[in-house]
């Protein structure tokens, strides 16, 4: 199994009483809450944390994109990937992901990814996402064309990376007379493409298509959704497309906190993980799902789901119980991942080891404990330990 550390780079100095005045830490939260001096410290601290993970033997370090919010300070993950590319030697650098389709000009991102891939000698992983609903308010892109633009931006970028140029791209949303990428990516035919999602059958079916076979990464989900969607990928490959998906095509992303004992882990993580879910992820329905962002069917499902959980504040106990986060002693955490692997066989694991207000010292302790106590056992896991669908049927 490949182990990645994932960072959101939150604005952890946020005055959390913002919630008394503003309905979200996104879109409408005034940027007067952001202090550039704190920003300077945070960016450098967070980069240190990722570099530390690379030194400790994580297979990859990963960053992502969000706009105009306090939850994640990386409107351009490319900037972070570039900063990391010269400070690391072996770790994969995973941008999970970039929302190519939010841009009027996705080729600028295609160029930047190719540059990073060349600089790092082929260590880049390119995640492609639509961006969450809030980005469509912040950047003005029309959510009603989000799906169509996502697919077209993907086609444009892959062609730009692989087809000899110059050629013309004649799409519905994108039109370019000269596509002729300098530089071309280092990896051939192109950097691996991953599709991170919080659970969308449309995304899974798209990622699993035999012409793509992209890594599907399930993020931020209760354990039962992780099971449902990761299995759906394998089923989809088999039933819809007639091939057996490799376990390398499957990944899970989750917040993780490790301490000496279960109790200590809970106690140390509690204020910070609750801040993540209740404060930084505070997003009203209208912001999360702008009109047209979801298909009619998905919106209907989401509405009924949201009605049943609306008003619910997360506590660390509910988060652990539902399997949205993994938290405990090294034995507890290791066992939980090994059990999950036996059940689901994912060969990629992304761990969010810093979250919300988790301070520098606890973050470093978390990274070091995870690297020494848990990672070696997981890195040795292969398909031999995966029980396959039969295990689930039996259980």
């Amino acid at each position, binding site marked *: 199994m490949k182990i990645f550390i994932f960072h959101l780079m939150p604005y952890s100095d946020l005055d959390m009483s913002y919630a008394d005045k503003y309905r979200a830490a996104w879109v409408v939260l005034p940027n007067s809450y952001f202090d550039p001096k704190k920003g300077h410290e945070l960016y450098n601290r967070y980069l240190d944390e990722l570099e530390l993970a690379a030194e400790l033997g994580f297979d990859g370090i990963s960053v992502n994109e969000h706009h105009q919010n306090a939850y994640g300070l990386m409107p351009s993950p490319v900037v972070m990937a570039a900063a990391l590319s010269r400070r690391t030697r072996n770790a994969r650098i995973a941008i999970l992901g970039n929302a190519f389709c939010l841009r009027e000009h996705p080729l600028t991102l295609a160029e930047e990814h190719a540059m990073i891939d060349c600089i790092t000698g082929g260590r880049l992983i390119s995640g492609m996402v639509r961006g969450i609903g809030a980005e*469509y*308010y912040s950047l003005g892109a029309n959510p009603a*064309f989000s799906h169509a633009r996502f697919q077209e931006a993907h086609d444009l970028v892959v062609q730009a990376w692989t087809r000899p140029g110059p050629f013309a791209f004649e799409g519905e949303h994108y039109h370019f007379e000269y596509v002729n990428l300098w530089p071309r990516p280092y990896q051939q035919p192109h950097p691996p493409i991953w599709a991170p999602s919080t659970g969308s059958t449309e995304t899974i079916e798209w990622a699993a298509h035999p012409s793509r076979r992209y890594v599907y990464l399930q993020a931020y989900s209760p354990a039962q959704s992780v099971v449902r969607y990761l299995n759906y990928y394998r089923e989809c490959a088999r039933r819809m497309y007639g091939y057996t998906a490799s376990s390398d095509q499957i990944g899970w992303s989750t917040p993780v906190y490790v301490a000496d004992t279960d109790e200590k882990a809970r106690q140390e993580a509690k204020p910070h993980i609750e801040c993540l879910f209740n404060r930084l992820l505070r997003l009203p329905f*209208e912001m999360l799902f702008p*009109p*047209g962002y979801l298909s*009619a069917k998905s919106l209907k499902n989401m509405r009924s789901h949201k009605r049943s959980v609306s008003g619910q504040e997360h506590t660390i106990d509910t988060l652990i119980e539902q399997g949205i986060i993994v938290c405990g002693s090294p034995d507890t955490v290791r066992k939980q991942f090994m059990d999950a692997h036996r059940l689901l066989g994912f060969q990629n694991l992304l761990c969010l080891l810093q979250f919300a207000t988790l301070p520098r010292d606890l973050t470093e302790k978390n990274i070091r404990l995870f690297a020494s106590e848990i990672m070696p056992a997981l890195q040795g896991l292969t398909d031999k330990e995966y029980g396959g669908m039969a295990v689930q049927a039996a259980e």
Partner: protein
Amino acid sequence: MLQHTEIDVRGCKLNLHRGGHGEPLLFLHGAQGLSDHEPGIEALTANFDVIAPDHPGFGKSDQCAAIDDINDLALFYLDLLDALELDQLHIVGQCIGGWLALEIAIRTTAPIKSLVLVNSAGLRIKGVPRADMFVCSEADLLKLLFAAEGAAEWLASWRASPDLEDIYDRNRAAAARYSWSPRLCNPKLEHWLHRIDVPTHIIWGEQDRVIPPAYAAALKDRIAGATMATLPDCAHMLHIEQPQAFASEVSQFIRRAAR
């Protein structure tokens, strides 16, 4: 009473609400679509042959792949007028529907006898803030759309059945498709308003915050000979909040224009 009929316009199935007798009047609805109970539009059937389509993607009309923006919609409606063999008609448009009426009229006023713009989108006056009806919560949306009475009733009418709930969501998605960016306007529209050479009346809800009354004055300044009326005790959904006042404003204006 309005009856539903369906018409196929070059492959796009359009749902029409139609009723009444008199000169033809095309009602172009706004971002909220047409609800099941539209007393203002029904009141117009006393004097007019009212034709109120669900725009493509709204209500029970198809979403046509080729219709992406307000320009496509304007041309599509010119096709609809040809298909219905309508000319000499009055156009009444609210919100996005008013914007659409303007986009049709700057292309041609040949089939148009008069124009009524109700809390119309389309223009952008720099520095005049407009509330965003997409980002706000449902409770805030109701406060934006309605000055007082009728908001809860209107929302309840959409919650009456799962089909209507679906249409409510569908309408929001279609509204975003046509008006997300630039929000509710075509920045170039004002350069072409001189082409409108038919009697034009502007009706505005005094408390509209989606398109504040400053926009009514701006339209009046830019459309030759336009007249204007501001109605008290109503906001963006004037035709629902003040159905009788709305219908009589429209009817009286058309009568005046005929003289």
